[in-house]
C-alpha cells in the first residue's frame, strides 16, 4: 500500500493510504477530541466533535471519517474549529443532567474529560425534562438513558462488533433514544450480556450494577438520608484504593485476558483487556460478570478435611498430607489412578503427571479432555 504525505498543524506526516485524518493526527502526537469514535468501531462521523479545517474542503469535515490525501493541509486547533467544538459540546450537554457528583462514572467519564479539554463552562441548572425510568440490563448492569448523549457506540458495538443487534436507535417523543425493539426486556431480544455496550459507553448511562460492598454501605446510608446516598457513596468509592491486575479468564478455551479491579483483596469488577492477543478487548457474560462471586464465595474450601468416624472433619495441612502420603504408599502401581484437571495450570499438570509416573509408577493419569 502506498504512503501519503500531508501536513497537520504545520507538521509533516506520512501515513499509509486509506488512513483517516484522525489516525494520522494521533500518530503525529496531535490530539483531536472525539466522542462517537471508538477504536473497535468503524467511524460514523455523527457527533462532529472531531471536526477539523482542511484546505479546499467545504465546512469542517469530521476527521474520524475523512481519509487522508496527498498534500492535504489540516488544521485542528483554529479559532473556528475551537468555536465549533464548544458549540457542538454545548448542544450535546443541553439535556444532560447536572448530577455528576452522584454519577457512578464521575471522574472516569469521557464527557467530563471532553468538557475540560474543549473548555466550556457547564451551568448548574436543574434539569427541566422529565426523567426516564432507570432500566435494568438483566441482573448485571443498569441503563439510565437520561445520561445518554446518543453517540451510538453501544448500538454500533452490539451490531458491528458482536454481530448481535439487541439494541437499536428509536424515536421516543420526537427524540432519538437507545432501546430495544418494542421496548422488550434485553433477555428477549437476543442480548448475550457481554457488556460490550457498557464498556463502550462514554458516560454513566450504562454502568455495572453496584457491587456487593456498595449494596451493604448503601443500606446504611439510606437509613440516614437517602437523598444524598448516591453522592456519599460515589465520593467514598473515589477514595478507596483500587488496583488493576491482569490475568486470564478461567472459563472456556479462548484464553481471554481480563483486567481485574481489586479493592481490599476482593475482585470488584472484571473487564476485557484490549491488549489480550486472543480476545482483543472482547469477553462474554461469564468472564465479565461470572468470576468475582465464585472466587469469593463463602462455600470455598478453606481448610483440609479428613474423614474420622464416617464424617469429614477439619484438620491441619500436616496431618492431611501425611495421611495422603501414607495411604498412597500402600498401593501397587496398578491399584492407583490420578485424575488431573483442565482447570489447573501447565505447571500443575506437569507436576501431577510427574507424580503419577515417577512416584506412583503408573501411567493411569488423565483429565476431562473428553467431556
Amino acid at each position, binding site marked *: 500500500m502506498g504512503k501519503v504525505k500531508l501536513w497537520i498543524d504545520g507538521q509533516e506526516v506520512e501515513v499509509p493510504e486509506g488512513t483517516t485524518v484522525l489516525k494520522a493526527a494521533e500518530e503525529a502526537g496531535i490530539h483531536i477530541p472525539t466522542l462517537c469514535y471508538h477504536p473497535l468501531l468503524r467511524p460514523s462521523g455523527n457527533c462532529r466533535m472531531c471536526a477539523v479545517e482542511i484546505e479546499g474542503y467545504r465546512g469542517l469535515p469530521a476527521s474520524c471519517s475523512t481519509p487522508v490525501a496527498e498534500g492535504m493541509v489540516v488544521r485542528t486547533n483554529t479559532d473556528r474549529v475551537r468555536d465549533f467544538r464548544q458549540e457542538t459540546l454545548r448542544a450535546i450537554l443541553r439535556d444532560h443532567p447536572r448530577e455528576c457528583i452522584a454519577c457512578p462514572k464521575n471522574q472516569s467519564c469521557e464527557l467530563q474529560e471532553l468538557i475540560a479539554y474543549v473548555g466550556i463552562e457547564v451551568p448548574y441548572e436543574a434539569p427541566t425534562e422529565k426523567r426516564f425510568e432507570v432500566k435494568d440490563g438483566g441482573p448485571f448492569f443498569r441503563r439510565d438513558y437520561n445520561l445518554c448523549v446518543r453517540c451510538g457506540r453501544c448500538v454500533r458495538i452490539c451490531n458491528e*462488533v458482536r454481530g448481535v443487534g439487541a439494541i437499536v436507535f428509536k424515536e421516543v417523543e420526537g427524540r432519538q433514544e437507545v432501546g430495544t425493539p418494542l421496548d422488550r426486556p434485553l433477555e428477549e431480544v437476543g442480548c448475550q450480556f457481554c457488556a460490550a455496550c457498557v464498556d463502550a459507553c462514554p458516560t454513566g448511562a450504562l454502568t455495572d450494577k453496584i457491587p456487593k460492598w456498595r449494596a451493604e454501605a448503601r443500606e446504611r446510608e439510606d437509613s440516614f438520608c437517602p437523598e444524598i446516598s448516591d453522592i456519599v457513596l460515589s465520593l467514598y468509592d473515589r477514595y478507596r484504593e483500587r488496583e488493576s491486575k491482569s490475568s486470564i479468564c478461567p472459563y472456556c478455551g479462548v484464553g481471554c485476558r481480563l483486567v481485574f479491579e481489586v479493592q481490599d483483596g476482593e475482585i470488584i469488577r472484571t473487564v476485557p483487556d484490549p491488549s489480550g492477543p486472543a480476545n482483543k478487548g472482547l469477553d462474554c*457474560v461469564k468472564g465479565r460478570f461470572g468470576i468475582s462471586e465464585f472466587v*469469593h464465595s463463602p462455600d470455598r474450601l*478453606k481448610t483440609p478435611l479428613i474423614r474420622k468416624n464416617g464424617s469429614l472433619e477439619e484438620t491441619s495441612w500436616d496431618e492431611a498430607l501425611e495421611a495422603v502420603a501414607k495411604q*498412597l504408599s500402600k498401593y501397587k502401581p496398578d491399584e492407583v489412578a490420578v485424575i488431573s484437571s483442565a482447570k489447573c495450570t501447565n*505447571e500443575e*499438570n506437569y507436576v501431577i*503427571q510427574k507424580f503419577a509416573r515417577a*512416584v506412583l509408577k503408573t501411567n493411569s493419569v488423565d483429565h476431562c479432555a473428553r467431556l
Partner: protein
Amino acid sequence: MTNTIEDIGEASCILAIGTNTTDTHPVIGTRVRRAVLNGAHLIVANPRRIPLVKHATYFLQHRPGTDIALLMGMARVIVDEDLHDREFIESRCENFEEFKKSLDAFSLDFVSEVTGVNAELIRRAAILYATHKPSSLLYAMGITQHTHGTDNVLATANLAMLTGNIGKRGTGVNPLRGQNNVQGACDMGALPNVFPGYQAVVDENLRKKFEDAWGVDNLPGEIGLTLPQMFEAINSGKIKAVYLVGENPAVSEPNLEHLKNVFQKLEFLVIQDIFPTESMPYAHVVLPAASFAEKDGTFTNTERRVQWFDPVVPAPGQAKPDWWVTCEIAKRMGASGFDFTSTKEILDEINKVTPSYGGITYGRLQMTTLQWPCPSTDHPGTPILHTQAFTRGKGHFEPLTYKGPQEMPDEEFPFVLTTARSLFHFHTGTMTRKVTGLNIIRGEEYVEIHPDDAAGLGLKDGDVVRVVSRRGAVEAKALITDRAPKGVVTMDFHFSESPVNVLTNPAHDPVSRIPEYKACAVRIEKR
C-alpha cells in the same frame, strides 16, 4: 486449532460443524459473526438451529451422529465436480486413490437419506466450501462426543486436505476447546499414553530420557487407563485409590447412577478442589486448592497460545496452589525432584523436557505470548501449523465407512437425546452456579422438545417431564421449541439437580475413549 482465532477473520468461507460457538466460546462466535458481516460465507452444520444459523448462507440440519455421512457426502461432491485441489493433494498428501474409492459408498441420495438434509443443499454447501477459499473449518464436541468421534475428526481433515485448506491463513481444521487449559493439560502429559509434549510412554528411549531428567528408575512403559477405564477398574476392584484434582465426575461422567456406586468401592479417595463438589461424600481426605485468581503460572488456549498470569487476590483460608500440594505429597512419600519453590522453576523443567515448549520460557512470557511448537528461545512460535509439511510428513487421506450412533431410538425409547451447553453456565456449574446473576438468567435445566412431539405427548411449556433412558431417569421442565427437529430432545449438563448424565450412554470411541454424549435413546413421560 491449526490456525489462530484472529485468522478466522481471514476466511472467505467458514464451515462450523458440531459447534455452538456463540454460546460455548462467545469471543470466537463474535469473530465468526464479524467475518460474515465483512463478507465471508458461513455454513452451519448442526442438528440444532443454533444462534449462528441466522448468519449462515447454508444451514445443514443433519441428524445427531450422522457427521461422517455428511462430510464424506460433501467430499464426494467436491471430487465429482472436479473442485479438489490436485496440486495440494499431489505434493502434500498420500492415499488419495484409496480415499476416493471409499467415497463411492456416499452417493448424495444415500447421504441425504441418512442425514435428513436435502441433497441439493449438501451439494451447494460443498461447492461453496471448495470454491470460496480460504475456507476455515471449525468443530467442537459435536464432532468428538460420539462412538465414532475419531472418524468424524478424520472426515474433517479429509475435507480440508481435499481442498488444500491447510497451512495457510484463513484455512485450517480448528477444534475449539471448551476448558481454559484443556489444551495445556494434554500438552503437559496429563494423559495415560504420553509424557509432556506428546512423547509416547511406550517408547523406551523417551522413557530413558525422562528417567534421566527426573532422576528415577523404571518409569512405567505400559499405557495407563483413561477416565472411563478408571471407573471400570474401580468397579471391578482393581483400582483401590484415586487422587482426584479439580474434577467433578459425579456430574460430568456418563451413566451417573452407576458411577455413585463405583465411588463407594474406593478404599481411599483424595479430592483436591476449590469447592465442595458432588464427589465429596466419597472422599477420605479433602485438600483446599487456590483458584486461578490466587496463583500464577501458564495456561494454553485453544490456538496453542501459552500465556503467563499472576495472582490477583490472596487465597482464602489455608487454600494452596495445586502444584504446592502435589509436591508436598511427593516429598512426604520420599520422592526427589519435587523441591520446586515457584512455578517458574517448574516451567524451567518443562522447557528442558518438552521440545514443543523448549523456547516458551518464563523470561519471554513476561513480555509476550507464544504459540507452540516453539522449540528454542530464538523461535518466534508457530501461529499456523502444517505450512510446509504435516507432522507425519504427508497428509494421509483416511478412507471411511458410515457409522451412526451406538444407541438408536426404538419403540420403548423413541427420542434421541443430545446434550448441549448454555451461554450462561459452565460445565458442571461448580463455578457459574455460585453467581447470582447467571442463575437469575438461567437457574434450572430444560428439556427442549419440538412442538409436534410436545403436542403428541400433550405437553405445554413449563410442564415437568421425566426423561428416561436405559440407565436412569431425570426430571426437568419442558421448553417447547423447534430448535431441534422432531424426534430430537436437548438438555444441558450444568445442573446437578437434573443430572443429565444419569441418562447418557457410556459407550465410547475406541481410540479417543470419548463417551457418546451427543446421542442416546430416551422416552419422555409427562408427570
